[in-house]
Protein backbone atom coordinates (compact mmCIF):
# COMPACT_ATOMS: atom_id res chain seq x y z
CA UNK A 1 0.00 0.00 0.00
CA UNK A 2 1.56 3.30 -1.11
CA UNK A 3 1.39 6.58 0.77
CA UNK A 4 -1.56 7.83 -1.26
CA UNK A 5 -3.74 4.86 -0.34
CA UNK A 6 -2.79 5.12 3.31
CA UNK A 7 -3.58 8.85 3.37
CA UNK A 8 -6.86 8.34 1.57
CA UNK A 9 -7.86 5.64 4.06
CA UNK A 10 -7.02 8.03 6.88
CA UNK A 11 -9.17 10.72 5.32
CA UNK A 12 -12.09 8.33 4.87
CA UNK A 13 -11.77 7.41 8.56
CA UNK A 14 -12.22 11.09 9.43
CA UNK A 15 -8.66 12.47 9.49
CA UNK A 16 -8.60 15.55 7.25
CA UNK A 17 -4.80 15.55 7.23
CA UNK A 18 -5.00 12.54 4.94
CA UNK A 19 -6.43 14.70 2.17
CA UNK A 20 -3.93 17.46 2.91
CA UNK A 21 -1.10 14.98 2.36
CA UNK A 22 -2.66 13.75 -0.88
CA UNK A 23 -2.97 17.30 -2.21
CA UNK A 24 0.64 18.06 -1.33
CA UNK A 25 1.93 14.89 -2.93
CA UNK A 26 -0.08 14.76 -6.15
CA UNK A 27 -1.14 18.34 -6.90
CA UNK A 28 1.55 19.38 -9.40
CA UNK A 29 1.71 16.09 -11.29
CA UNK A 30 -2.06 16.01 -11.60
CA UNK A 31 -2.14 19.59 -12.89
CA UNK A 32 0.43 18.75 -15.59
CA UNK A 33 -1.40 15.61 -16.59
CA UNK A 34 -4.73 17.43 -16.82
CA UNK A 35 -2.98 20.17 -18.72
CA UNK A 36 -1.95 17.56 -21.30
CA UNK A 37 -5.66 16.83 -21.74
CA UNK A 38 -7.20 20.30 -21.75
CA UNK A 39 -4.16 22.13 -23.15
CA UNK A 40 -4.35 24.94 -20.60
CA UNK A 41 -2.46 24.96 -17.30
CA UNK A 42 -4.81 27.44 -15.57
CA UNK A 43 -7.87 25.35 -16.39
CA UNK A 44 -5.92 22.26 -15.38
CA UNK A 45 -5.34 23.74 -11.93
CA UNK A 46 -9.07 24.34 -11.48
CA UNK A 47 -9.86 20.84 -12.65
CA UNK A 48 -7.25 19.36 -10.33
CA UNK A 49 -8.82 21.26 -7.45
CA UNK A 50 -12.24 19.98 -8.52
CA UNK A 51 -10.82 16.44 -8.53
CA UNK A 52 -9.67 16.80 -4.91
CA UNK A 53 -13.06 18.25 -3.94
CA UNK A 54 -14.75 15.29 -5.59
CA UNK A 55 -12.62 12.85 -3.65
CA UNK A 56 -13.13 14.75 -0.41
CA UNK A 57 -16.90 15.06 -0.84
CA UNK A 58 -18.01 11.76 -2.29
CA UNK A 59 -15.20 9.61 -0.94
CA UNK A 60 -15.32 7.13 -3.82
CA UNK A 61 -14.06 3.66 -3.07
CA UNK A 62 -10.58 2.83 -4.32
CA UNK A 63 -11.01 -0.71 -5.62
CA UNK A 64 -7.29 -1.27 -5.42
CA UNK A 65 -6.91 -2.45 -9.02
CA UNK A 66 -3.81 -0.31 -9.49
CA UNK A 67 -1.77 2.20 -7.54
CA UNK A 68 -3.41 5.18 -5.84
CA UNK A 69 -1.84 7.50 -8.40
CA UNK A 70 -3.43 5.55 -11.25
CA UNK A 71 -6.81 5.79 -9.54
CA UNK A 72 -6.42 9.52 -8.80
CA UNK A 73 -5.29 10.30 -12.33
CA UNK A 74 -8.24 8.36 -13.72
CA UNK A 75 -10.61 10.52 -11.68
CA UNK A 76 -8.70 13.61 -12.83
CA UNK A 77 -9.00 12.53 -16.44
CA UNK A 78 -12.76 11.90 -16.09
CA UNK A 79 -13.21 15.33 -14.52
CA UNK A 80 -11.23 16.92 -17.36
CA UNK A 81 -13.25 15.06 -19.99
CA UNK A 82 -16.46 16.26 -18.31
CA UNK A 83 -15.12 19.81 -18.39
CA UNK A 84 -14.26 19.56 -22.09
CA UNK A 85 -17.68 18.11 -22.85
CA UNK A 86 -19.44 20.92 -21.00
CA UNK A 87 -17.37 23.64 -22.65
CA UNK A 88 -17.11 22.09 -26.11
CA UNK A 89 -19.67 24.45 -27.66
CA UNK A 90 -18.42 27.64 -26.13
CA UNK A 91 -14.67 27.52 -25.41
CA UNK A 92 -13.78 30.18 -22.86
CA UNK A 93 -10.04 30.37 -23.46
CA UNK A 94 -9.00 33.78 -24.77
CA UNK A 95 -5.76 34.70 -26.48
CA UNK A 96 -4.64 36.59 -23.38
CA UNK A 97 -5.39 33.55 -21.31
CA UNK A 98 -3.16 31.44 -23.53
CA UNK A 99 -0.26 33.85 -23.04
CA UNK A 100 -0.78 33.79 -19.27
CA UNK A 101 -1.04 30.03 -19.42
CA UNK A 102 2.32 29.66 -21.23
CA UNK A 103 4.16 31.84 -18.74
CA UNK A 104 2.52 30.06 -15.82
CA UNK A 105 3.40 26.69 -17.22
CA UNK A 106 6.98 27.77 -17.64
CA UNK A 107 7.22 28.82 -14.02
CA UNK A 108 5.62 25.58 -12.84
CA UNK A 109 7.95 23.57 -15.03
CA UNK A 110 10.90 25.26 -13.40
CA UNK A 111 9.70 24.40 -9.91
CA UNK A 112 8.32 20.91 -10.60
CA UNK A 113 10.47 19.44 -13.36
CA UNK A 114 13.69 21.16 -12.37
CA UNK A 115 15.83 19.19 -14.81
CA UNK A 116 16.54 21.23 -17.94
CA UNK A 117 16.18 18.31 -20.31
CA UNK A 118 12.77 17.50 -18.92
CA UNK A 119 11.69 21.11 -19.26
CA UNK A 120 12.79 21.09 -22.93
CA UNK A 121 10.94 17.89 -23.65
CA UNK A 122 7.84 19.13 -21.88
CA UNK A 123 7.90 22.36 -23.85
CA UNK A 124 8.20 20.33 -27.08
CA UNK A 125 5.24 18.20 -25.97
CA UNK A 126 2.95 21.24 -25.97
CA UNK A 127 2.90 21.08 -29.76
CA UNK A 128 1.81 17.45 -29.86
CA UNK A 129 -1.70 16.03 -29.97
CA UNK A 130 -3.52 15.65 -26.66
CA UNK A 131 -3.32 11.85 -26.63
CA UNK A 132 0.41 11.93 -27.39
CA UNK A 133 0.98 14.45 -24.63
CA UNK A 134 -0.96 12.30 -22.19
CA UNK A 135 0.80 9.07 -22.96
CA UNK A 136 4.26 10.70 -22.88
CA UNK A 137 3.55 12.47 -19.59
CA UNK A 138 2.29 9.34 -17.88
CA UNK A 139 5.07 7.13 -19.24
CA UNK A 140 8.15 9.39 -19.03
CA UNK A 141 7.36 11.92 -16.33
CA UNK A 142 5.10 9.90 -14.01
CA UNK A 143 7.00 6.66 -14.69
CA UNK A 144 3.78 4.64 -15.02
CA UNK A 145 3.91 1.28 -16.74
CA UNK A 146 2.07 0.69 -20.00
CA UNK A 147 -0.59 -1.23 -18.11
CA UNK A 148 -1.15 1.62 -15.64
CA UNK A 149 -1.17 4.15 -18.46
CA UNK A 150 -3.74 2.02 -20.23
CA UNK A 151 -5.89 2.00 -17.08
CA UNK A 152 -5.72 5.77 -16.70
CA UNK A 153 -6.45 6.48 -20.36
CA UNK A 154 -9.04 3.68 -20.57
CA UNK A 155 -7.37 2.01 -23.51
CA UNK A 156 -5.86 -1.41 -24.09
CA UNK A 157 -2.18 -1.99 -23.45
CA UNK A 158 -1.68 -2.71 -27.15
CA UNK A 159 -3.18 0.61 -28.22
CA UNK A 160 -1.08 2.39 -25.59
CA UNK A 161 2.04 0.80 -27.10
CA UNK A 162 1.03 1.98 -30.57
CA UNK A 163 0.13 5.41 -29.25
CA UNK A 164 3.43 5.67 -27.40
CA UNK A 165 5.37 4.73 -30.52
CA UNK A 166 3.64 7.40 -32.61
CA UNK A 167 4.03 9.95 -29.79
CA UNK A 168 7.77 9.30 -29.68
CA UNK A 169 8.07 9.89 -33.42
CA UNK A 170 6.13 13.13 -33.15
CA UNK A 171 8.21 14.27 -30.20
CA UNK A 172 11.41 13.41 -32.05
CA UNK A 173 10.44 15.49 -35.04
CA UNK A 174 9.49 18.41 -32.77
CA UNK A 175 12.78 18.24 -30.90
CA UNK A 176 14.77 17.98 -34.11
CA UNK A 177 13.08 21.15 -35.30
CA UNK A 178 14.65 22.87 -32.31
CA UNK A 179 18.03 21.21 -32.99
CA UNK A 180 17.71 19.05 -29.92
CA UNK A 181 19.31 15.60 -30.08
CA UNK A 182 16.56 13.15 -29.28
CA UNK A 183 18.98 10.22 -28.99
CA UNK A 184 20.61 11.85 -25.96
CA UNK A 185 17.41 11.67 -23.96
Amino acid at each position, binding site marked *: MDNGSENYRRYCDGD*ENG*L*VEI*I*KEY*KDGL*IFYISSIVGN*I*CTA*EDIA*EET*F*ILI*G*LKKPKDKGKGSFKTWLYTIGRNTAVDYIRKNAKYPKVSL*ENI*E*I*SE*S*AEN*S*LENTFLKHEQKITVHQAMRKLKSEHRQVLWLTYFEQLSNKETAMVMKKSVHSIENLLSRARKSLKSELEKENFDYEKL
Partner: protein
Amino acid sequence: MKNYKFKSCDEMTQDVFEKIRQRKAENTARKKKLTKTAFAVCPLCAAAVLGVSLSNSGIFSSPQKMIETHTEYEIVNEEKTAETIKTTALTTENSTVMFVSTETETSETEEKVTEYTDITTEEIQNIETEEDTIINETTHVAVSSEIITTHKATTTAPKTTTTQKFTTAATIKTESITTESVTQPIQSNGNGLAVFFTYVEIGETRYSVAEYSTNNYTIGEYIGKVGDFSGQYGISGTNSQFHLRCCDTDSVYYASESSDILLVKRNDGRIFELKPVLVDWNDPVFNSVFDAVPSLLFEIDN
Protein backbone atom coordinates in the same frame (compact mmCIF):
# COMPACT_ATOMS: atom_id res chain seq x y z
CA MET B 1 2.69 39.74 -20.22
CA LYS B 2 0.73 39.16 -17.05
CA ASN B 3 2.05 36.74 -14.47
CA TYR B 4 -0.14 33.91 -13.30
CA LYS B 5 0.40 32.78 -9.76
CA PHE B 6 -0.33 29.15 -9.04
CA LYS B 7 -1.97 28.27 -5.76
CA SER B 8 0.35 26.90 -3.16
CA CYS B 9 -0.43 23.61 -1.49
CA ASP B 10 -1.83 25.35 1.57
CA GLU B 11 -4.01 27.64 -0.50
CA MET B 12 -5.37 24.76 -2.52
CA THR B 13 -5.97 22.68 0.61
CA GLN B 14 -7.84 25.58 2.19
CA ASP B 15 -9.94 26.09 -0.94
CA VAL B 16 -10.68 22.40 -1.25
CA PHE B 17 -11.94 22.04 2.33
CA GLU B 18 -13.92 25.25 2.14
CA LYS B 19 -15.68 24.10 -1.03
CA ILE B 20 -16.31 20.65 0.44
CA ARG B 21 -18.06 22.21 3.46
CA GLN B 22 -20.02 24.55 1.21
CA ARG B 23 -21.26 21.73 -1.00
CA LYS B 24 -22.15 19.55 1.96
CA ALA B 25 -24.31 22.39 3.31
CA GLU B 26 -25.95 22.79 -0.10
CA ASN B 27 -26.67 19.07 -0.31
CA THR B 28 -28.19 19.04 3.16
CA ALA B 29 -30.43 22.00 2.33
CA ARG B 30 -31.47 20.34 -0.93
CA LYS B 31 -32.29 17.09 0.86
CA LYS B 32 -34.37 18.94 3.45
CA LYS B 33 -36.28 20.73 0.72
CA LEU B 34 -36.86 17.46 -1.11
CA THR B 35 -38.06 15.73 2.04
CA LYS B 36 -40.45 18.58 2.79
CA THR B 37 -41.87 18.44 -0.72
CA ALA B 38 -42.22 14.66 -0.54
CA PHE B 39 -44.05 14.85 2.79
CA ALA B 40 -46.38 17.50 1.37
CA VAL B 41 -47.14 15.56 -1.79
CA CYS B 42 -47.40 12.03 -0.33
CA PRO B 43 -50.83 12.43 1.34
CA LEU B 44 -52.25 13.93 -1.85
CA CYS B 45 -50.90 11.06 -3.93
CA ALA B 46 -52.20 8.51 -1.43
CA ALA B 47 -55.62 10.15 -1.43
CA ALA B 48 -55.67 10.20 -5.23
CA VAL B 49 -54.69 6.54 -5.46
CA LEU B 50 -57.30 5.61 -2.85
CA GLY B 51 -59.96 7.59 -4.68
CA VAL B 52 -59.16 6.00 -8.01
CA SER B 53 -59.10 2.50 -6.56
CA LEU B 54 -62.40 3.04 -4.75
CA SER B 55 -63.91 4.50 -7.90
CA ASN B 56 -62.72 1.51 -9.92
CA SER B 57 -64.13 -0.90 -7.36
CA GLY B 58 -67.56 0.56 -8.11
CA ILE B 59 -68.33 1.70 -4.61
CA PHE B 60 -69.68 5.01 -5.89
CA SER B 61 -71.99 3.52 -8.51
CA SER B 62 -75.63 2.75 -7.69
CA PRO B 63 -76.70 -0.87 -6.99
CA GLN B 64 -78.97 -0.90 -10.05
CA LYS B 65 -76.06 0.16 -12.22
CA MET B 66 -73.96 -2.54 -10.70
CA ILE B 67 -76.52 -5.14 -11.73
CA GLU B 68 -76.70 -3.79 -15.23
CA THR B 69 -72.99 -3.78 -15.70
CA HIS B 70 -72.62 -7.23 -14.26
CA THR B 71 -71.84 -9.50 -17.16
CA GLU B 72 -71.65 -12.84 -15.47
CA TYR B 73 -73.27 -14.56 -12.61
CA GLU B 74 -72.84 -17.83 -10.95
CA ILE B 75 -75.49 -20.43 -10.71
CA VAL B 76 -75.02 -22.75 -7.85
CA ASN B 77 -76.08 -26.10 -9.04
CA GLU B 78 -76.28 -29.56 -7.68
CA GLU B 79 -73.99 -32.24 -8.95
CA LYS B 80 -76.23 -33.26 -11.77
CA THR B 81 -75.34 -32.08 -15.21
CA ALA B 82 -78.90 -31.55 -16.24
CA GLU B 83 -82.08 -31.33 -14.40
CA THR B 84 -85.60 -31.43 -15.55
CA ILE B 85 -87.56 -28.43 -14.58
CA LYS B 86 -91.10 -29.15 -13.80
CA THR B 87 -93.60 -26.44 -13.43
CA THR B 88 -97.10 -26.72 -12.44
CA ALA B 89 -99.71 -24.32 -11.42
CA LEU B 90 -102.49 -25.38 -9.24
CA THR B 91 -105.53 -23.31 -9.27
CA THR B 92 -107.87 -23.19 -6.37
CA GLU B 93 -111.13 -21.50 -6.21
CA ASN B 94 -109.95 -18.02 -5.38
CA SER B 95 -106.22 -18.08 -5.50
CA THR B 96 -103.43 -19.26 -7.67
CA VAL B 97 -101.07 -21.67 -6.10
CA MET B 98 -97.75 -21.73 -7.80
CA PHE B 99 -94.59 -23.58 -7.09
CA VAL B 100 -91.58 -24.19 -9.18
CA SER B 101 -89.06 -26.77 -8.34
CA THR B 102 -86.64 -29.27 -9.76
CA GLU B 103 -86.47 -32.97 -9.61
CA THR B 104 -83.66 -34.46 -7.67
CA GLU B 105 -82.77 -38.00 -6.79
CA THR B 106 -82.94 -37.20 -3.12
CA SER B 107 -86.60 -36.47 -3.37
CA GLU B 108 -87.39 -40.16 -3.61
CA THR B 109 -88.02 -40.33 0.07
CA GLU B 110 -90.53 -37.58 -0.04
CA GLU B 111 -94.10 -38.70 -0.22
CA LYS B 112 -96.35 -35.74 -0.29
CA VAL B 113 -96.76 -32.57 -2.19
CA THR B 114 -96.76 -29.44 -0.14
CA GLU B 115 -98.71 -26.67 -1.56
CA TYR B 116 -99.00 -23.09 -0.48
CA THR B 117 -101.87 -20.92 -1.14
CA ASP B 118 -102.38 -17.25 -1.17
CA ILE B 119 -103.79 -16.77 2.25
CA THR B 120 -104.44 -13.13 1.80
CA THR B 121 -107.10 -13.58 -0.81
CA GLU B 122 -109.36 -15.83 1.09
CA GLU B 123 -109.35 -17.95 4.10
CA ILE B 124 -108.62 -21.51 3.26
CA GLN B 125 -110.63 -24.25 4.67
CA ASN B 126 -108.60 -27.23 5.66
CA ILE B 127 -110.25 -30.33 4.49
CA GLU B 128 -108.72 -33.57 5.47
CA THR B 129 -108.95 -35.92 2.53
CA GLU B 130 -107.31 -39.10 1.49
CA GLU B 131 -103.95 -38.70 -0.13
CA ASP B 132 -105.02 -40.33 -3.37
CA THR B 133 -107.93 -38.03 -3.68
CA ILE B 134 -105.69 -35.04 -3.35
CA ILE B 135 -103.35 -36.26 -6.03
CA ASN B 136 -106.23 -37.00 -8.34
CA GLU B 137 -107.67 -33.59 -7.81
CA THR B 138 -104.29 -32.04 -8.38
CA THR B 139 -103.77 -34.03 -11.51
CA HIS B 140 -107.12 -32.99 -12.77
CA VAL B 141 -105.95 -29.44 -12.75
CA ALA B 142 -102.36 -29.98 -13.62
CA VAL B 143 -102.89 -32.27 -16.59
CA SER B 144 -104.30 -29.45 -18.58
CA SER B 145 -101.79 -28.18 -21.05
CA GLU B 146 -102.95 -24.69 -20.31
CA ILE B 147 -100.80 -24.59 -17.24
CA ILE B 148 -97.96 -23.09 -19.24
CA THR B 149 -99.67 -19.78 -19.08
CA THR B 150 -100.75 -18.32 -15.81
CA HIS B 151 -104.44 -18.28 -15.44
CA LYS B 152 -106.79 -17.88 -12.60
CA ALA B 153 -109.32 -20.36 -13.63
CA THR B 154 -112.22 -20.90 -11.44
CA THR B 155 -112.67 -24.59 -11.11
CA THR B 156 -115.00 -26.77 -9.24
CA ALA B 157 -112.16 -28.33 -7.46
CA PRO B 158 -112.60 -28.25 -3.75
CA LYS B 159 -110.36 -26.08 -1.69
CA THR B 160 -107.84 -28.55 -0.59
CA THR B 161 -104.70 -28.52 1.31
CA THR B 162 -102.59 -31.21 2.80
CA THR B 163 -100.70 -31.50 5.96
CA GLN B 164 -97.51 -29.65 5.38
CA LYS B 165 -94.32 -31.54 5.90
CA PHE B 166 -91.30 -29.40 6.42
CA THR B 167 -87.85 -30.52 6.95
CA THR B 168 -86.28 -28.67 9.79
CA ALA B 169 -84.40 -25.59 8.81
CA ALA B 170 -82.93 -24.79 12.16
CA THR B 171 -79.37 -25.81 11.47
CA ILE B 172 -79.11 -25.02 7.81
CA LYS B 173 -77.15 -21.83 8.19
CA THR B 174 -73.80 -23.33 8.98
CA GLU B 175 -73.89 -26.21 6.57
CA SER B 176 -71.31 -26.20 3.86
CA ILE B 177 -72.59 -26.41 0.32
CA THR B 178 -70.82 -28.63 -2.18
CA THR B 179 -71.71 -27.17 -5.47
CA GLU B 180 -70.57 -26.91 -9.04
CA SER B 181 -70.33 -23.53 -10.64
CA VAL B 182 -72.13 -22.78 -13.84
CA THR B 183 -71.38 -19.53 -15.54
CA GLN B 184 -73.60 -18.00 -18.11
CA PRO B 185 -74.66 -14.52 -19.01
CA ILE B 186 -77.57 -12.89 -17.28
CA GLN B 187 -80.77 -13.16 -19.22
CA SER B 188 -82.52 -10.02 -20.22
CA ASN B 189 -86.29 -9.89 -20.03
CA GLY B 190 -86.75 -6.34 -21.19
CA ASN B 191 -86.80 -4.93 -17.68
CA GLY B 192 -83.10 -4.80 -17.29
CA LEU B 193 -80.78 -7.69 -16.70
CA ALA B 194 -82.07 -10.22 -14.25
CA VAL B 195 -82.11 -13.86 -13.47
CA PHE B 196 -85.18 -15.98 -12.95
CA PHE B 197 -85.94 -17.41 -9.60
CA THR B 198 -86.97 -20.97 -8.95
CA TYR B 199 -85.60 -22.04 -5.62
CA VAL B 200 -82.85 -21.69 -3.09
CA GLU B 201 -81.58 -24.76 -1.30
CA ILE B 202 -80.05 -24.56 2.12
CA GLY B 203 -78.83 -27.81 3.55
CA GLU B 204 -81.53 -30.41 3.06
CA THR B 205 -84.30 -27.91 2.72
CA ARG B 206 -85.43 -26.39 -0.54
CA TYR B 207 -87.18 -23.07 -0.38
CA SER B 208 -89.35 -22.10 -3.26
CA VAL B 209 -91.27 -18.96 -4.09
CA ALA B 210 -94.55 -18.76 -2.33
CA GLU B 211 -95.38 -15.11 -2.45
CA TYR B 212 -94.27 -12.01 -4.22
CA SER B 213 -94.15 -8.64 -2.49
CA THR B 214 -95.39 -10.20 0.69
CA ASN B 215 -96.68 -8.27 3.62
CA ASN B 216 -97.16 -11.34 5.76
CA TYR B 217 -93.72 -11.40 7.32
CA THR B 218 -91.15 -8.97 8.49
CA ILE B 219 -87.49 -9.23 7.70
CA GLY B 220 -85.48 -10.94 10.40
CA GLU B 221 -81.91 -12.17 10.58
CA TYR B 222 -79.75 -11.75 7.48
CA ILE B 223 -78.22 -15.05 6.35
CA GLY B 224 -76.48 -14.19 3.09
CA LYS B 225 -76.90 -13.46 -0.59
CA VAL B 226 -78.90 -15.62 -2.98
CA GLY B 227 -75.65 -16.54 -4.70
CA ASP B 228 -74.30 -17.95 -1.45
CA PHE B 229 -76.71 -20.87 -1.59
CA SER B 230 -77.31 -23.66 -4.00
CA GLY B 231 -80.43 -23.64 -6.04
CA GLN B 232 -81.83 -22.76 -9.41
CA TYR B 233 -82.29 -19.04 -9.33
CA GLY B 234 -80.62 -18.45 -12.68
CA ILE B 235 -82.97 -20.38 -14.90
CA SER B 236 -84.42 -18.79 -17.96
CA GLY B 237 -87.32 -20.29 -19.74
CA THR B 238 -90.16 -19.58 -22.01
CA ASN B 239 -92.57 -19.48 -19.13
CA SER B 240 -91.04 -16.55 -17.42
CA GLN B 241 -94.33 -15.64 -15.88
CA PHE B 242 -93.96 -18.72 -13.72
CA HIS B 243 -90.63 -17.54 -12.51
CA LEU B 244 -89.88 -14.70 -10.28
CA ARG B 245 -86.79 -12.77 -11.16
CA CYS B 246 -84.00 -12.35 -8.72
CA CYS B 247 -80.32 -11.71 -8.78
CA ASP B 248 -77.56 -13.57 -6.99
CA THR B 249 -76.67 -10.38 -5.13
CA ASP B 250 -80.12 -10.13 -3.56
CA SER B 251 -80.19 -10.55 0.21
CA VAL B 252 -81.72 -13.50 2.01
CA TYR B 253 -83.26 -13.13 5.50
CA TYR B 254 -85.16 -15.24 7.93
CA ALA B 255 -88.64 -14.03 8.58
CA SER B 256 -88.98 -12.67 12.10
CA GLU B 257 -92.14 -14.66 12.63
CA SER B 258 -90.81 -18.06 11.59
CA SER B 259 -87.43 -19.54 10.87
CA ASP B 260 -89.07 -21.76 8.24
CA ILE B 261 -89.81 -18.77 6.08
CA LEU B 262 -87.11 -17.07 4.07
CA LEU B 263 -87.45 -13.62 2.57
CA VAL B 264 -85.44 -12.54 -0.46
CA LYS B 265 -85.14 -8.79 -0.72
CA ARG B 266 -84.35 -7.52 -4.18
CA ASN B 267 -82.31 -4.45 -4.90
CA ASP B 268 -85.47 -2.62 -5.94
CA GLY B 269 -86.97 -3.28 -2.50
CA ARG B 270 -89.41 -6.00 -3.52
CA ILE B 271 -89.57 -9.09 -1.38
CA PHE B 272 -90.05 -12.75 -2.22
CA GLU B 273 -91.38 -15.07 0.38
CA LEU B 274 -89.83 -18.52 0.27
CA LYS B 275 -91.21 -21.55 2.00
CA PRO B 276 -89.87 -25.09 2.26
CA VAL B 277 -91.21 -27.35 -0.42
CA LEU B 278 -90.99 -31.08 -0.80
CA VAL B 279 -92.19 -32.40 -4.12
CA ASP B 280 -92.08 -35.99 -5.23
CA TRP B 281 -91.59 -35.31 -8.87
CA ASN B 282 -91.23 -39.01 -9.54
CA ASP B 283 -94.89 -39.45 -8.94
CA PRO B 284 -96.47 -40.53 -12.26
CA VAL B 285 -99.19 -37.96 -11.87
CA PHE B 286 -96.68 -35.33 -12.99
CA ASN B 287 -95.80 -37.09 -16.22
CA SER B 288 -98.15 -34.97 -18.22
CA VAL B 289 -96.71 -31.86 -16.62
CA PHE B 290 -93.21 -32.82 -17.69
CA ASP B 291 -94.41 -33.25 -21.22
CA ALA B 292 -95.89 -29.80 -21.23
CA VAL B 293 -92.88 -27.96 -19.84
CA PRO B 294 -89.66 -28.13 -21.83
CA SER B 295 -86.62 -29.32 -20.00
CA LEU B 296 -83.90 -26.79 -19.49
CA LEU B 297 -80.31 -27.78 -19.86
CA PHE B 298 -77.33 -26.10 -18.28
CA GLU B 299 -73.81 -25.90 -19.48
CA ILE B 300 -71.44 -27.11 -16.84
CA ASP B 301 -68.30 -25.06 -16.68
CA ASN B 302 -65.44 -27.55 -16.35
